[in-house]
């Protein structure tokens, strides 16, 4: 069969695109009550009193509860990654009790018979706050005498984590070139299409909790742990989920609270967030300050790299908050060889929304650092940025390669991807045009940005997670059920939220079992249906869950072979299985289809001794190694030097993600990933004012680009199969995001180099580019001035 590799249209899209499906908010059991949360308007304050009497008296209000009311049962939200033994992990109540530590933290909730009544009642709750100092700036937060986010900790430092390999002092000693740079990874808001939503329904002696989550299995375990309700009494369903990008890889307070409210009230309780509520309370991404030092020889060969990070945790450590920047520890060396490397990261508490995984999670930040540095090194030495990379990257013949960061890259072909990208991009032609524009002093300058990235994905080998003190394994589970009619149900522990599992998993199954694609149904996202799983994040679904499915299919074939041999009165060793049929080698007509074997198993009239009447099989896959997608991305940016506006003229992405199951899905992932990475480079930024108020609470202020703002992407692939799994796949969910941010910023800076510009802080807004051109480097960080006319006022603007 050739299902694997076929560009099938996604079978789930019709229902997802039309919305005629089960989004959590669409599910409304009889008697559902609606919850709404009152959120702190302060970044940091002591709660001195809450008066909810007026709210309680409003019509249709069933209950009003404060943090104090729930203090005895709400427990603390979990952090599953204790990155150092002495990591400080303050208790994180789902609803604030005594103190609020970020604007948007829940302080009370109303449960009412309809959403309008709930929101009306919120306005009648009076909370007395005693403001405490906001802690907004990470660099100031770690200085002596800084105001504290958690007074009892005595410090704003959560942890310091260090990795060192090689003799860094030797690498820097007498190095002909030493670069020092400070890059800021601005804070981002994940902005999934579907906001968060939770519905918890009491169900006999247990609860069914529907949530727009990426992690139904992990959520179930964590809800049990936090609330003390038995895991077997909680069923978690992730119905169709409209995107997550890591933001739904979380155990949120609202999920715990809906469960507690349903238990208290004995009624289904639903909560769906508004977009502005989500901007404040969905965990944020990125937010780190990178101090980088790179030592190189005069020919551009990198000798050593020193990375020192401040990573903003926000107010609390959430599910994997502290570990996110540390994923970068293994990636700052990129695709390059070097003699010495050190990485240190300090996790810092601030009075801001907690951070956690966001598409790429630690790897985009690291890739940005090294890829910006490689361009800076090229500029410093007057070399072409491609040439500098060639002199440093791991050659195709050197795989498997043990990197300075302690990983073993199993495979890769950086030469092939780069050659293909250069040809598609017409690199030389664009360089000629750039020279011409510089010569003519064209007000619109052309910049070319390079990003030759790799990433680690297919999270993750359980033993590696163990060595990093992560609280769980990284395996994935799949089950294949062959129904009596020969149709097939596939159960996967990987929980799709837009990735297209239903199509890709059916393709793998059809390919392996030789059944028609249409005969396969993929089930996921319900702990009662797929009890085992590690869910979806870190580009792991195919490289881990897809491989589990591949193995489960093999087990089905193995079981069927025993029965087929019995039916054909042949030796198992003489059977060949192709296109869904067992045939006796050398005997043309002697054969039996999988369908016939299934029927025989179901009837069970004539089974060999000890053979069970089923072909159903399951498998769990735990990879030995990560997978390492890589690629070469090239970006051409036109920069208007009069206004500072950046326009992307062309973008070439050549990715090597190993074997491909569905090229159409891959294309979609690359396009979306590029858009999100470009968004970080040019558009998006969560901005806090000096008092710790988030000023980008609406989509008028937090600019997410649309198709109209992006160039037509040129995408292509090289194919170097991963050796770490039998499918040869690597993962593609994050590649575009990881690669594109530095490609774009490198292009912007490249355009401006003749003007002495060496950096533009992200996002490279027109004003920042303009200021950089005026020699105002590093200036122009967004800030909302008091009394500014923008923001919500303009949300109503002129339409």
């Amino acid at each position, binding site marked *: 069969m050739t299902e694997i590799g076929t560009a099938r249209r996604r079978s789930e899209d019709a229902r997802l695109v039309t919305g005629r499906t089960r989004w959590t908010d669409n599910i409304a059991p009889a008697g559902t009550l609606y919850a709404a949360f009152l959120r702190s308007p302060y970044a940091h304050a002591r709660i001195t009193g809450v008066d909810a009497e007026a709210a309680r008296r409003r019509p249709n209000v069933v209950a009003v509860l404060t943090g104090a009311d729930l203090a005895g049962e709400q427990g603390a939200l979990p952090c599953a990654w204790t990155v150092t033994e002495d990591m400080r992990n303050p208790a994180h109540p789902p609803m604030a009790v005594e103190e609020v530590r970020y604007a948007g933290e829940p302080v009370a909730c109303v449960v009412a018979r309809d959403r309008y009544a709930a929101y009306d009642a919120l306005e009648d709750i009076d909370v007395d706050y005693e403001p405490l100092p906001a802690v907004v700036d990470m660099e100031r937060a770690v200085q002596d005498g800084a105001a504290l986010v958690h007074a009892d900790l005595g410090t704003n430092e959560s942890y310091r984590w260090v990795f060192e390999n090689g003799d860094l002092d030797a690498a820097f000693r007498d190095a002909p070139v030493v670069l020092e740079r400070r890059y800021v990874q601005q804070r981002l808001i994940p902005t999934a299409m579907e906001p968060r939503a939770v519905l918890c329904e009491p169900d006999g002696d247990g609860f069914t909790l529907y949530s727009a989550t990426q992690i139904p299995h992990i959520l179930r375990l964590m809800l049990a742990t936090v609330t003390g309700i038995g895991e077997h009494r909680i069923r978690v369903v992730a119905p169709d989920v409209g995107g997550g990008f890591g933001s739904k890889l979380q155990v949120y307070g609202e999920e715990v609270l809906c469960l507690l409210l349903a238990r208290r009230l004995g009624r289904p309780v639903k909560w769906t967030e508004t977009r502005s509520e989500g901007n404040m309370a969905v965990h944020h991404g990125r937010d780190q300050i990178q101090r980088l030092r790179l030592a190189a020889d005069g020919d551009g060969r990198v000798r050593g790299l020193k990375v020192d990070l401040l990573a903003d945790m926000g107010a609390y450590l959430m599910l994997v908050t502290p570990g996110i920047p540390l994923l970068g520890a293994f990636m700052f060396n990129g695709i390059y060889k070097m003699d010495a490397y050190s990485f240190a990261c300090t996790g810092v508490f601030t009075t801001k929304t907690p951070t956690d995984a966001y598409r790429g999670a630690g790897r985009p930040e690291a890739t940005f650092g090294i890829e910006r540095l490689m361009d800076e090194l090229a500029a410093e030495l007057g070399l072409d940025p491609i040439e500098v990379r060639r002199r440093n990257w791991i050659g195709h013949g050197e795989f498997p390669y043990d990197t300075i960061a302690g990983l073993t890259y199993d495979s890769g072909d950086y030469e092939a991807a780069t050659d293909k990208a250069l040809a598609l991009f017409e690199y030389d032609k664009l360089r000629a045009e750039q020279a011409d524009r510089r010569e003519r002093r064209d007000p619109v300058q052309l910049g070319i940005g390079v990003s030759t990235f790799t990433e680690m994905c297919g999270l993750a080998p359980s033993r590696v997670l163990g060595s990093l003190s992560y609280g769980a394994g990284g395996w994935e589970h799949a089950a294949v059920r062959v129904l009596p009619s020969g149709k097939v149900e596939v159960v996967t522990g990987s929980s799709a939220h837009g990735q297209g599992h239903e199509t890709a998993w059916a393709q793998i199954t059809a390919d392996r079992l030789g059944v028609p694609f249409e005969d396969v149904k993929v089930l996921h996202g319900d702990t009662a249906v797929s009890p085992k799983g590690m869910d979806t994040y870190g580009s792991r679904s195919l490289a881990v869950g897809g491989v589990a499915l591949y193995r489960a299919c093999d087990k089905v074939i193995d079981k069927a072979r025993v029965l087929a041999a019995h039916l054909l009165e042949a030796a198992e060793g003489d059977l060949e299985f192709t296109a869904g049929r067992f045939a006796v080698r050398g005997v043309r007509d002697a054969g039996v289809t999988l369908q016939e074997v299934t029927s025989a198993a179901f009837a069970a009239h004539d089974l060999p001794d000890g053979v069970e009447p089923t072909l159903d099989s399951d498998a769990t896959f735990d990879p030995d190694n990560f997978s390492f997608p890589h690629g070469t991305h090239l970006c051409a940016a036109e920069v208007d030097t009069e206004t500072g506006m950046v326009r992307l003229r062309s973008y070439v992405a050549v990715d090597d993600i190993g074997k491909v199951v569905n090229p159409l899905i891959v294309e979609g992932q690359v396009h979306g990933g590029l858009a999100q990475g470009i968004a970080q480079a040019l558009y998006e930024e969560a901005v806090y004012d000096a008092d710790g108020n988030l000023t980008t609470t609406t989509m008028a202020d937090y600019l997410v680009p649309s198709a109209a703002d992006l160039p037509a992407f040129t995408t292509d692939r090289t194919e170097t199969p991963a050796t770490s799994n039998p499918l040869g796949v690597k993962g593609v969910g994050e590649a575009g995001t990881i690669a594109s941010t530095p490609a774009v910023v490198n292009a912007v800076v490249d355009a401006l180099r003749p003007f002495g510009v060496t950096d533009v802080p992200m996002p490279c807004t027109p004003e920042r580019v303009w200021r950089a051109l005026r020699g105002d480097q590093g200036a122009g960080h967004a800030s909302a001035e008091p009394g500014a006319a923008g923001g919500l006022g303009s949300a109503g603007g002129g*339409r």
Partner: protein
Amino acid sequence: MIPAAFDYARPASLDEAVRVLADAGEDAKVLAGGQSLMPLLRLRLAYPDALVDLDRLDGLREIRDDGDAVVIGALATHHQVLRDPLVNEHLPLLARATATVADPAVRHRGTFGGSLAHADPAGDLPAVALALDAVLHARSVRGEREIPAAEFFVDWMTSALEPDELLTAVRIPKLGPGWGVHYEKFHRTAQAWAIVGVACAVRRVQGAVEDVRVALTNMGPVPVRASAVERFAEGRTLSRDALRAAAAHAADGTGPPADLHGSAEYRTHLAGVLTARALTAAAGV
């Protein structure tokens, strides 16, 4: 969409509409296309006691020829304006600016009258109305009156309409032969509001600038007529340098806002650059 409670009326005629509006008092809001009001309701930034929905007043959707002017019904949608032959022939500046408003979905619901009455200085069309010397027709139970665009935009999000007044139509003088127009909108994403916008019309006669109108979007609490630019450009020879020199006065007398998308200083700079571009584009030099 979880607004606070409000009364709702959907009058069947203009007479009924103004009566309902008069009865509803000071805290009523008029609902046209809803593309500005709905977000304010949703965010609970507006708490009207009552909404008066104009949806049934089909008579206010008409765009008609009125001799030396085109009269656009207040409820004509942006999409309708964009497609209208009269607008395209006689008011190409309006057509161009309208094409930059938000996105197709918004343009199909949002109305020309609504965006003027909303009086957001970041909106594109108030500046166009100002540049084209539009006259806005208002009606109430007390009668009808005409308000020139220059007097219509009173303050940030505040028009000259009284609480009981309804904007019914906008009369815009046709631009005759010899005029070139341009709307230069500077925004970070396609759907974002203008950081600065420049609406510009230039009449050329024998190699000279005979007449020029320039109005600025988002350079103050109301749309601003760049009178200094007009003064410096009029009567000059038609050249890029002359127009650029005039454009350098674009920000004269303005008080641009500062927000997440641009500081006042940056907007001041942009006004000059964009005005030069708008002028040269409109003049075709």
